[in-house]
């Protein structure tokens, strides 16, 4: 099959044989940068990280969150799909039956070990109920101990916003026996 070939020019000319022209051209470019930045910081790209945040696209896969239905209950019906598809096997679900028959199954325990998670987004694609999302835009997740990195269900779920349609509150979501107080909620702010 035919294709075009381009020989690379190895620059054996006189201009490259002397030191001064090369240094002069280099200085021209660096001085241009220098004076533009010293006077008006025109080309500077760095941002002051803790004070300024880097703008993130909507598809950025940040920290997980469990979404809620209109009536305040969790959308997740504990179907274990995200647990099976997760390549890092970092999701652990335990389903529970809710006394109110109109409510399908719900997750008593929904732990994600954020240290193992590789942020690939396969769980978001696999979830049939769009119950888990990664669009919180929270980039930096820093806590003091390893244990605080496996997020529990109460920590992942969205903040509860009561309105006229909400029937269920967080009290209707019984917690597994060994998990007492919730840790920071999904916005990354420690729960009171």
């Amino acid at each position: 099959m035919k294709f075009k070939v381009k020989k690379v020019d190895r620059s054996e000319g006189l201009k490259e044989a002397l030191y001064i022209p090369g240094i002069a051209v280099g200085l021209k470019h660096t001085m241009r940068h220098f004076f533009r930045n010293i006077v008006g910081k025109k080309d500077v790209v760095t941002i002051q990280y803790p004070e300024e945040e880097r703008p993130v696209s909507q598809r950025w896969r940040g920290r997980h969150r469990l979404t809620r239905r209109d009536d305040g209950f969790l959308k997740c019906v504990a179907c274990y799909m995200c647990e099976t598809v997760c390549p890092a096997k970092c999701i652990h679900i335990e389903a529970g039956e809710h006394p109110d028959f109109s409510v399908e199954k719900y997750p008593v325990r929904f732990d994600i070990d954020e240290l193992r998670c590789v942020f690939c987004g396969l769980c978001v694609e696999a979830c049939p109920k769009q119950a888990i999302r990664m669009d919180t835009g929270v980039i930096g997740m820093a806590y003091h101990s390893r244990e605080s990195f496996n997020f529990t269900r109460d920590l992942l779920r969205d903040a509860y916003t009561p309105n006229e349609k909400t029937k269920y509150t967080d009290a209707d979501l019984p917690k597994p026996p060994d998990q007492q107080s919730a840790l920071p909620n999904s916005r990354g702010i420690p729960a009171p």
Partner: protein
Amino acid sequence: MQLVLEFLALPFVQDVLKILFILLLFAMPLGTFMTLMERKWSAAVQDRIGPNRANIGSYRGRGLLHIAADALKSIFKEDLIPKGADKFLYTIAPFFSFMSAVAVFAIIPIAGPIGDFKFQVTDVEPGLLFIFAITSLGVYGAVLAGASSNSKFALFGGTRASAQMISYEVFLGLSLMGLFMVYGSTQVSAIVEGQGEHWFGLIPKWGVFTQPLGFVVFFTALIAETKRAPFDAPEGESEIVAGYFVEYSGMRWSSFMLAEYIAIVGVAALITTLFFGGYQVPWLYHWESAPQWLVTLLQFGKFASFTFIFCWFQIQIRWTVPKFRFDQTMALGWKKLLPVALLNTVVTAIIIVALA
């Protein structure tokens, strides 16, 4: 009051005051300022902001506090001596390089003489030969540091530093031969005096116009002498990590660092003194009626600004030009700089004989 004036007139006291002024108020602060400015200016070249985080309370300045932060850091950092290192040589090595960087200012005049009072620490007859002697002492700093700190990378750095600094002293001396011939003496004040005249009243008789080739060789040799920019094979941080001061830490490491930045100011001061008319302000002689204090101020202002410009230029070169390999620095020195320096000397001699 009379007593004080008398006391001031004592030559010994004057010398101490001159040392205090030139070293502690001009060279050292400019050197420490350069440590920060190198990071700031390199940031400007590379489209970033550079250090601006050191703060006292909420006052951050534009990074100025980083000088204090570096100083404190180097005081409190632990000064460890590696296992198997030769303790005595290891501890005295930093003083050699620091001493040789500082001693350069002994003969540099920062302003014109008033009557018999010279703004110069000492005005020895063989001024520039003193410079060569001091810089050759600087070699001990790098060599002893490299050899004594029981690490192969340091050994590499030390041997490279010794070969490079010794051979570049030769070109340092040779490149100034032309200058001595043009201005007739090795005394620094005489050279600066000589640069005061003007050709046809317009072009000042600076060293760079009379000795362009000499200037190029001298400047290259000085940069190589301070092991900076393209000639930093002894400190080749990519292949031998940090060269001869790889095992140093704390105050010893920072004395090597400070020596390097004071050497930058020393190089800049030398260049302005020998090739850019030192304190001679061009075309100032037209204005006879200027008051003496204004003339001295102008002369010192010109000297300080030119030194500052050349400090900036050295830092700019560092962030533009890639590094030589060690054998290339030696080849450049012996195969290119040596013939050019000799040629310059011969040509200058012929011209002087032809003009005279």
